[in-house]
């Protein structure tokens, strides 16, 4: 279910209307949307999830809910994305069954291997570059470290953290299957155009690689 071409995952940000932004990212060609909102209440998250899931169906994209396995199941999302502070992967997998996608955030080859063993379908690896979207205490891992993770696991890697049109090819060339962005789309003057430019960049690069 994870796309085979290099793809764009858009993660909704905390301060904007997630449904509108998800719609624009999808129109721009994003293949995966992750609903991530830490401060919204359950009803609000559920309503957003239902709306974004419908948009993703229309665009044949994958819809993932961050942290809340319950919201993902209630809204019929395609899967969940879990951080290291969220429900443990093995416990989440039991709730999700085999049919749904489970992504896990990791920041080292060891964590990537553990995620794969515990049933992850993909990993989010980062943060690759310095980023202001999430509070980070550790240093960026750098695009070159993707090769170590690629060597450790078989499941797809989505690179995250400080990715923009200026550097999006580096993680792909280092072995990532896709890139995940927040502010590169959400804070762009034209989010749809920003998403489209990223997607075109990734897929042009793919053609070059062939």
């Amino acid at each position, binding site marked *: 279910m994870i796309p085979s071409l290099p793809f764009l995952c858009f993660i909704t940000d905390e301060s904007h209307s997630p449904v509108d932004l998800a719609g624009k990212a999808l129109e721009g060609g994003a293949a995966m949307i992750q609903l991530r909102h830490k401060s919204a*209440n*359950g009803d609000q998250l*559920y309503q957003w999830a239902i709306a974004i899931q419908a948009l993703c169906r229309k665009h044949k994209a994958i819809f993932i809910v961050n942290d809340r396995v*319950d919201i993902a*199941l*209630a809204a019929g999302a395609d899967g969940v994305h879990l951080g290291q502070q*969220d*429900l443990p992967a093995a416990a*989440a997998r039991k*709730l999700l069954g085999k049919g749904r996608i489970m992504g896990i955030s990791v920041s080292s080859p060891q964590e990537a291997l553990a995620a794969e063993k515990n049933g992850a379908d993909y990993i989010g690896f980062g943060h690759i570059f310095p980023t202001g979207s999430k509070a980070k205490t550790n240093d960026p891992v750098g695009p070159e470290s993707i090769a170590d993770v690629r060597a450790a696991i078989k499941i797809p890697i989505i690179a995250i953290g400080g990715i923009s049109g200026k550097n999006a090819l580096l993680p792909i060339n280092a072995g990532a299957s896709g890139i995940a962005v927040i502010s590169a789309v959400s804070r762009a003057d034209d989010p749809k155009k920003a998403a489209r430019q990223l997607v075109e960049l990734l897929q042009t690069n793919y053609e070059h690689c062939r």
Partner: protein
Amino acid sequence: MSIDVPAVLPRLCIISSGNDPDGSGLLIRRQIELLRPSLPCLMQIREKHLDASTLFRLSLTLKAAATGKNVLIILNERADIAAAAALDGVHMRESSYPPDRLRSFTGRMLIGKSVHSAESALNAAQSGVDYLIFGPVFDTPSKRQYGKPQGLDKLGEVCGAVSIPVLAIGGITPENTPRCLSEGAYGIAALSLFSDTSRFPGLLTTFEKILYS
């Protein structure tokens, strides 16, 4: 209206303090230790500030602590964590998503819901929850941010509107509990009342008399 009660729903609900510093569940474990077989109890974990992995570990710890005790462990809001830890139930906030969306993965777990009006109580009951918590019935410092207490008349209205059990919350004491029961409440829920473990055994004795005789 006759009350349709899940086979084992306790009439007493103790809610955690909400300020567990690290998710160790020290106070809740002490409270569980002090419970007695003759007084069934719902213990609701409500620690909104803890992340999901900490809540999951706390759930497993409390489930183990509850083994052999006459207590059901319920987690506030996070049905996924409750199900993953095989807890006895989940308690949904009024502002949560429709509870009928939960049954596919919660199985036979109890589902409770907080309500603050008769209309909301009716909607919740129709969506298939097992019990309601209504309040604040009386004045209580922890609930003042939500406005004036609703009073006994509103409690009576809610209890009359639904056929599932209603637990009264907000400023509950042994003294005013009989008045809640007279309005049709199935039982009571409280938080700060039970936070002083030195008074806890005495309170249990009092509530056992009021709720089960």
